[in-house]
């Protein structure tokens, strides 16, 4: 198992490097010049100013040299300096990472728990009113754009009912500590986490339902029934466990994209996370910051893929680690 993990890590590093190089060029292919964006924001765009900014960003150097400097930096865990935000990229990402992880992991847990639960019920009662109800419920949240669900949530729970705060990570200026602070953050978290979670929940529900119905028809389930096992045991130990493999695969893919996947949710709810940082960096052509976020997101995808492979083994003992 160790050699499997080691091999995957080495491969991962190579893939990461390839991603860095590819992203480096892709970003520069997009029209828009960071120096001109900043000059424009300053309400002035004389040649001296734009030249100064280009020198400051290192954009006056030949592209291969810029790439070399960047890759060298990444190799030494230095993600560079965001000249627009006037701070090291790693620091900027580090500041935002906890908020994003809190949001996305909560949303992930909600989506996975509700998705598997609803999917199991839908499969167990396939063809009934409950099945249809669950399917419609899941599809509604899957079909509606996230920003719309978010705005409707704000309208209902903040404006009309005044139950939940409409934006932010915490109550600004309240200076709460300890449990009071945790409760305050939790209140702020509910709407963004539910908005994001309900969207992903739909896919898990559908996937669990379909997979369970498929497994239910297999011979070993018949055998289990013939042995006289109770329906609950069959569903839980035999059907669900075997049906979870595709769900785990999907969760692996989703979890890798969690960090960068909450752009809209973070924007609507003013949640101070990585998604917004990335979106702003894109609009402002803040190359180093954007590349930095991409590197972190890519690394997360690779790490979660590895974790998914390991979880496979736990879920299905038939799978062996191929080296």
């Amino acid at each position, binding site marked *: 198992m160790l050699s499997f993990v080691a091999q995957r890590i080495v491969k991962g590093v190579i893939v990461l490097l390839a991603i860095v190089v590819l992203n480096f060029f892709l970003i520069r292919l*997009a*029209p*828009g*010049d*960071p120096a*001109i*964006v*900043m*000059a*424009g*924001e*300053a*309400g*002035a*765009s*004389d*040649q*001296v*100013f*734009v030249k*100064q900014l280009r020198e*400051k960003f290192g954009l006056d150097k030949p592209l291969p040299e810029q790439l070399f400097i960047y890759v060298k930096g990444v190799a030494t865990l230095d993600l560079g300096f965001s000249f*627009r*935000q*006037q*701070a090291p990229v790693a620091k*900027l990402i580090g*500041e*935002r990472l906890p*908020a994003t992880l809190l949001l996305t992991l909560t949303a992930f847990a909600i989506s996975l728990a509700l998705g598997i639960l609803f999917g199991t019920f839908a499969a167990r009662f396939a063809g009934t009113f409950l099945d249809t109800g669950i399917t419609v419920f899941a599809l509604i949240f899957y079909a509606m754009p996230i920003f719309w669900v978010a*705005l409707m949530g*704000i*309208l209902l729970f*903040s*404006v009309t009912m*005044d139950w939940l*705060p*409409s*934006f*932010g*990570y*915490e109550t*600004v*200026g309240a200076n709460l500590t300890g449990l009071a602070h945790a409760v305050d953050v939790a209140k702020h978290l509910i709407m963004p986490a539910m908005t994001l979670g309900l969207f992903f929940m739909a896919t898990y529900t559908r996937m669990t339902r379909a997979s369970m119905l498929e497994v239910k028809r297999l011979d070993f389930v018949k055998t289990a029934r013939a042995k006289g096992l109770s329906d609950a045991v069959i569903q839980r130990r035999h059907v669900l466990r075997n049906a979870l493999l595709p769900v785990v695969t999907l969760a692996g893919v989703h979890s890798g994209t969690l960090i960068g996947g909450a752009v809209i949710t973070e*924007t*609507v*709810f*003013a*949640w*101070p*996370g990585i998604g*917004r*940082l990335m979106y*702003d960096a894109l*609009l*402002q*052509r803040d190359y180093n910051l954007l590349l930095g976020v991409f590197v972190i997101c890519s690394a997360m995808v690779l790490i979660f893929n590895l974790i998914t492979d390991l979880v496979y083994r736990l879920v299905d003992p038939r799978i062996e680690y191929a080296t």
Partner: protein
Amino acid sequence: MPKRVLLGLLLACGLTAPALAQEPKTGGVINAVIQPEPPGLMLAQVQNGPTQMVSGNIFEGLLRYSPKLEPLPELAESWSVSEDAKTYTFKLKKGVTWHDGKPFTAADVLFSMEMLKQTHARARTNLAQVDKIETPDDYTVVFTLKQPFGPFLGIFEVGSMPMVPKHLYEGTDWKTNPYNNAPVGTGPFMFKEWQKGSFIRLVKNPNYHEKGKPYIDEIYWQIIPDAAARSVAYETGKVDVLPGGSVENFDVPRLSKLKDTCVTGAGWEFFSPLAWLWLNNRQGPLADKRVRQAIMYAIDRDFAKDVIWNGLGKVATGPSASTIKFYTDDVPKYPYNPAKAKALLKEAGYKGEKIRLLPLAYGETWQRWGEAVKQNLQDVGMNIETIATDVAGGNQKIGDWDYDIAFTYLYQYGDPALGVGRNYISSNIAKGQVFNNVEGYSNPEIDKLFADGATATPDSKRKEIYDKAQKILVEDVPVAWMLELQFPTITRCKVKNLITTGIGVNDGFKDAWLDK
């Protein structure tokens, strides 16, 4: 003095009874929206709009400007101009200290000028007029100009010429100086905390040089990226101030009707944002003046004002906004007249060539405006193709002259020599840059008029020159002027005196108080 005359004078001065009756109260917190999040707060190095809005509370300039753009004292308590209009002497206010307690003196002014020449594009352009700066004593600064420069007294507000603490920056690498992230100024509020992505917190400067001010204890600038969420934040009472441009225009009427809500369009006189369409004068049908004039006739600008901008703003008559110096409306007029537009297009021999239109990616209002203009131009037979892009991509296209028609709006900074001429003089045609003469208009007479206008004295002579320039430009239509924009500031009515100058919310909250 007879009572009637006295009353008339008071009313003329705008001193209404409630204003006289209300004494400012101290204390309280203002929650205001800031959008987008500023990239930094060191105003001498970062000059975008949100930076000035926050840092206008931390830093100060030598002067402020009234809504009529008359200079008012700030760090300079008085000033005088020599008879030849080349020497400006500023007497600095005594007893002013930086937030760290060190005194503010003429040496700081001198140092600030040196820094700004390198870090502040507008300041550099303006200071190019200066031959030398002398500081005969700690509280006197003398600027000697190479030649008279009409708008010189108009370049000293906090955003154009912020004062920088010499003792914290001299001999350091300015770009990485730690005080860039914890700025120290002389202003009414001190920097306290910045939680990136959430809020910026400023607290009252207890040693502020204007006795009794500021009245407010703290300001929280809340960072809310989504326009709808900003509206909700106001609606649910989480913020008290929505500075101009914080919410989409179509939300303004709704928010304005909320209980205890006050709305004002004041405070933009210095910037006077003017919206227009860049018209690429170099190529295709738009190289013909008649086609450009046809565009002016084809666009229903009253519709844009009344419907898209909810009645806010004013239809532009030419290159100068009516709020800046030397404006004249004695220019050719272009009322909405599709028939005339069609006739001009026919006369110019326009045969339906494709024309690319770049809307401005500043949100829904601008997108709608782009659609309305497209429809207007199609109605007179023009073949318009909309090019969708984000701000950075759009700027690149405009800077590379790769467009036919493009939306923009720019500040005018109170004087045609500062914010108007730059868009029409031929020396400002430089590929790769935006906001200069990107339309490629070239007219030696206009070049000369703007050059003369900047240096002429007295003001009556300048007015004569700018009147002529405006007439020529409006006849030539190098760009299609649309609206003098008005960005309404929405506040709870308990927030008093928020806007007291022509610089508005960008000038700091030192006069503001809360009627609790």
